[in-house]
């Protein structure tokens, strides 16, 4: 029967066991607490674990870079205008926006992983480490740029 719908398309590579991914929804917390760099780095690691195609990984990277640039520009502009208080929340907002892109690209693949009975990996350790290391690195970068 010549029906392309009944042609085998499932290769073992489509479901080979990798390290368990993190739940994309959980990446929201490091995104808000650590900013765009923290969520981007975690999301890129998660892309590898989910076996996302190159295009989706590049989308995450692009969103992360755009989020970081936007955060720097808006924070420096707000600082120049003398409105310092909202600046503390700009990082959280930028991280949240990057997370939206991460969620859009990773949700479907994670759901497929769930349908295969997969359990998510714990994000506690990597999440806290990303918030502390990358969040502070981002803050240091902002201080350096503000001082320059």
């Amino acid at each position, binding site marked *: 029967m010549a029906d392309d719908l*009944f042609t*085998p398309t*499932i290769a073992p590579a489509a479901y080979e066991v990798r390290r368990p991914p993190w739940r994309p929804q959980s990446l929201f917390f490091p995104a808000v607490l650590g900013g765009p760099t923290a969520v981007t780095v975690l999301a890129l690691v998660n892309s590898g674990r989910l076996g996302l195609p190159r295009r989706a990984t590049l989308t995450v990277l692009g969103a992360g870079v755009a989020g970081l640039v936007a955060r720097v520009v808006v924070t420096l502009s707000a600082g120049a205008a003398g409105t310092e208080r909202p600046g503390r929340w700009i990082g959280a907002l930028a991280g949240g926006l990057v997370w939206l892109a991460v969620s859009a690209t990773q949700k479907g693949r994670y759901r497929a992983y769930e349908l295969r009975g997969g359990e998510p990996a714990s994000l506690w350790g990597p999440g806290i480490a990303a918030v502390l290391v990358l969040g502070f690195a981002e803050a240091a970068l902002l201080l350096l740029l503000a001082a320059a």
Partner: protein
Amino acid sequence: MSAPDAQLSRVAHLLELNRPEQALDELGRLPAGAATGTAAFRLRAAALTELDRWDDVVAVVRQGLAECGPDAELLGRLGLALRHRLEYAPAERALLDALAIAPQSPWLLCQYADLCCAVGQTDKAERLVARAAALAPDAPPVFSSRFQLAYARGDDRAAERIAREFLGAWPSHPVALALHGVAASRRGRVGTAHRAFGQALAHDPTDADYAEAAWESRVHAHPLLLPLRPLYRLGTFRTWLLAVGVVVVLNLAGLDLLAGLFGLCWLVVCVWSWVAPSVARRLVLGRWRS
């Protein structure tokens, strides 16, 4: 009707009543000739499927195929069992062999669609479900596969709508009730989910997944988690956006103390959302659950 035929009818009836263990007992009493017929193998595989005994399903189906020759239903069961054993490529082979015999079977098309969803091939799954829906739009496997496809695509609204349609067409079908529970749970409707899973379990007490879901929904309906219901209902992103927005507005208005207090309250809610489910689990079960 001969005695073995009557026995097989009784087994089929027991399966309809969700009594797979009794069905297996009845099949064990079949005379040797009837026990090795295609119908007996189909019923045995169906009963073992109900009990989620996937290794046994594979063994029985392979024996049936060896003794009776190719059969679409047995091959479909083999595909289902192999999928549950995470052997996706062999499962696809079995389903394609089944579809070569019965290309117009909605159940087989849906099985294949579910398999495609599990490996992330949602476009192919959509075409398979569309074909099944064209053949039997109101069949339970079609509703179930449509739900699974929407879920795999992350479209929770569509999944909820399909669950409602399914429940409308089959109000007492355990799968319809369970999917309604899943959809309600995803949207933070804790009470609805709890009721739906409870009803699904009442209709099919042998299903371990329904039992687990009913238990989990009982935890989420615990009064300790009452303060978290708006969070479940709105979702993490929207709740955080709201909280951050309120703090920013209060800050901009110069109400620092109020902003600080609100931030502190928000922190308490966040910590509660991490701790309370475990506490509720302990209270519901009486011990920490592994």
